[in-house]
Structure formats: C-alpha cells, structure tokens
C-alpha cells in the first residue's frame, strides 16, 4: 500500500465529492478512493429511518446480490457491531465466533472482499444510519499500519460522504451549509492572512487548544481535510474575505 506523506491522500477527491450532482457520482468517487489509497475496496452503505437502503462502492455486483439473497445483513458481524454505534470498528475486533459468522467470512473472502476491514458508522439525522468501509487483503501488521496512518482521513471522509448522500437523497432539499460563527470566521481570516496559530490565539484572546477546536469545527463544516484546505474553501465560498 502506498502512503503519501504530506499532501492529503484525498487530494482532489473532496472537490469531486462536493461537486457530485447525483448518487452515481459517489460510485465513481468510491472507485477513485480505492485507487488512491491502493486498497481492494471502498463501500458506502446507508439505511434511512424508513428502511430504504442505498449503497455504492467497489464490491463485485455478484457479491452484493449474494449478500442480499443470503440475508447476510442479519449475520454480518460488521452490521451487528456498527448499528447504533458511532465509533470506528476494525473487523478483527468483532465477534466472528458463531458458525454462521465464520461461514459468512469465508464466503466474503472467496468473493474478494479481503480478510481485513475497517468500518465507520455514521448516525445521520432522523434515524438515518450509514456505514463507510474500507477493506483489503493483507496481514495484520500491514493493516494496522494502514489504519493508523489513515484513520483520521477515513473518519472525515465517511462523514463527508454521508453529508453528500443526504443532500442527494431524492425528495430532500439540501440543507444549507452550516454557517460559520463569527469566532470561526475571525480565526480562519487571520490564518488566511498569514498569522501563526499562536498569533491568532493571542489576537482572539483564547488559548491555542481552544483555537484548535474552533478550527477543527470550522474545517468539518467546510468539508475540508486540513486547515489550508479549510481556509481555501472558506475564501471560495465567500465565508471569509481577505
């Protein structure tokens, strides 16, 4: 697996995600993510409060059909372990001890899902639930290295995927982007004009820790992976003027 040290591994893909106009676009983005991270699969799966399901990703269509036909939703330890949860889950930590779960795992591996997986559950509004998963075939050490290096990006990406999917849900008017508070605007504006974090914190009379949390929060609202990206987006949206 390849790692890119400095540039965000999602370079360019978040822009494509933000510009996605239809659910089909999420499919091509999940394929691009798989290629970018050099793993076997990326999958996004959602279940609305009403029980409607939508999925996209790189699993083989035959496997998806088989999963439905066999009723694996009721057996899959990943679903059992993630539903109603909000923390990321390494598949190895789940309970695979039942005979049904072990048979399911063998079948999944035979269909090229991989022996490793990492899933991020997302609780959306009004009972919506989604799961963002990356899976791969490698040994435990390589997988731990991968998830440790990319956990943060994967968590953020999972939530951005879900935000977009909610926007694109048929019959739903997109929510207005969460506005930034004056404090967040001030912080990003000062960073945009070249202040260091310490200078921004001093100017706003807050600690650097508080500043980090404000920036983290603004970054999430802007759908950005890092601070530079957040500043660029805030300028592009007219949220800040420099």
């Amino acid at each position, binding site marked *: 697996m390849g790692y890119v040290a400095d540039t965000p591994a999602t370079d360019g893909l978040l822009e494509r995600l933000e510009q996605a106009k239809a659910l089909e676009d999420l499919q091509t983005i999940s394929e691009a993510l798989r290629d970018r991270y050099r793993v076997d699969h990326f999958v996004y799966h959602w279940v609305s409060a009403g029980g409607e399901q939508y999925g996209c990703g790189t699993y083989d269509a035959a496997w998806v059909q088989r999963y439905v036909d066999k009723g694996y939703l009721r057996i899959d330890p990943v679903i059992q372990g993630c539903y109603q949860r*909000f923390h990321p889950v390494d598949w190895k930590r*789940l309970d695979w001890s039942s005979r049904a779960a072990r048979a399911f795992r063998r079948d999944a591996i035979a269909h090229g899902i991989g022996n490793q997986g990492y899933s991020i559950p997302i609780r959306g509004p009004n009972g919506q639930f989604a799961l963002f998963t990356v899976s791969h075939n490698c040994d435990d050490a390589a997988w731990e290295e991968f998830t440790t290096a990319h956990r943060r990006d994967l*968590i953020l990406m999972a939530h951005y995927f879900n935000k977009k999917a909610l926007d694109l849900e048929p019959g739903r008017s997109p929510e207005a982007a*969460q506005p930034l508070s004056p*404090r967040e605007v001030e912080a990003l504006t000062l960073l945009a004009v070249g202040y260091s974090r310490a200078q921004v914190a001093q100017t706003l009379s807050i*600690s650097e820790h508080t500043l980090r*949390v404000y920036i983290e*929060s603004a970054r999430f609202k802007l759908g950005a992976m890092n601070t530079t990206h957040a500043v660029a987006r805030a300028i592009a949206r007219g949220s800040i003027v420099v």
Partner: protein
Amino acid sequence: MIRYIHANDLDAFPLLKRTMFTDRADQFRNRLGWAVTVDEAGEERDDYDALNPLYVIWERADGRHGGSMRLLPTTGRCMVNEHFLHLTGGVRIESPLIWECTRFCLARETEPGTASALMLAGGEVMQGFGVEHYVGVFDSRMVRIYRRIGASPEVLGSQGDGREKVSVGLWGFSAEAQARVAASAGIAPGQSRAWFEAAFGAAPARVSAAA
C-alpha cells in the same frame, strides 16, 4: 472495573444501570440543586440519554455504580450545541473528531480513584477511536477534582454561581496527562487497556511473519 456500555446494552447490567441513574439524581438534584428530571424510581435522565450514548462507568466490587460519564458525538444532537452555545463563543462545535462528555458523576461513597479511572478510560476512547478532543459540561466541584488528578480541562465559559455553576471545557489527549491520570487512579495501563478491549474486542496477537 471500568465498563463501556451503550445505552441500548444497559439492560444487561440492571444493578449498574439503576444505581447510575439514582446516583445521578443524588449528585445533580440533591447535591448540586440542578433542575434535572427525576422519575418515580428516583432515576435522573434527560433527552440525551435517549440518543444511545456511550456510558463509561466505574463499577464497584459489589456491582454498583461508582462513577460515570456520558459520551456522544458532536456531529449529532448534543448538549453543548443545544444549550451552551453562549459558553463556547457562539461556536457550534461539530466534528467526528470531537466528542461530548456530560453527566460526569461520582457516587457518594465510591473509591478515591474513581474520577481518575474515568479520565483514564476517556483517554482509552480517544486512542482507540481517533477522538482528538472532548468538549465537556461539568459542575464547579469537578474543576478541583480534575486539577487534583492532573487532567484539567480548558474552561471555555461558565454560567451560574456556587453549586449551580456549570462550565464548558475542553480536553485534548497527551501521553503525559494519561500517565499522570493512571498513576492517580492506581491502575496499570495494561489493565486499563484490557477493560477497553473487553468492551470493544481485542486486537488479535500480532503474528510474526515467520509464524
């Protein structure tokens, strides 16, 4: 021991569950005088308990609640963003990397290391799940306790006076603070890790390439 239990799994721990909610009533209504809702069984709950939060609970040797706190993601409904925006500089704190910690509660007669054990567990959650900060709501008495155990939050803002004073604060993670808290709790890091893994599954032992 420390238990990590989601609300929808609490029924498997009836004594722990009941004593947690009655101890919360004792702390927040009786001792602090907060306007909280207590049912006929003497249990304190609010709207956020209905959102399937993750409770981190110190279970005493007799199986009763010794202390607890309640964790929720800030990407969904949470107390800080719905009730305390005036204490966060108006910033709606929202990120999957920031969780909310509320209802930090200590039973009257719990072991002295309980608060430290809960903070230690909070650190396990951060490391295990990629949480970078907690934003918490706590009463004024906790400020001294947090300081004593070496895990002071950064206070963003406070309201009220005396027993009714409520603050919003932030915690980050640092290995040094985690070590201080472990020492203060008298709990070995390996033990703390084992409790976390008992709740969320153990990573299998690393198999060497030669195996």
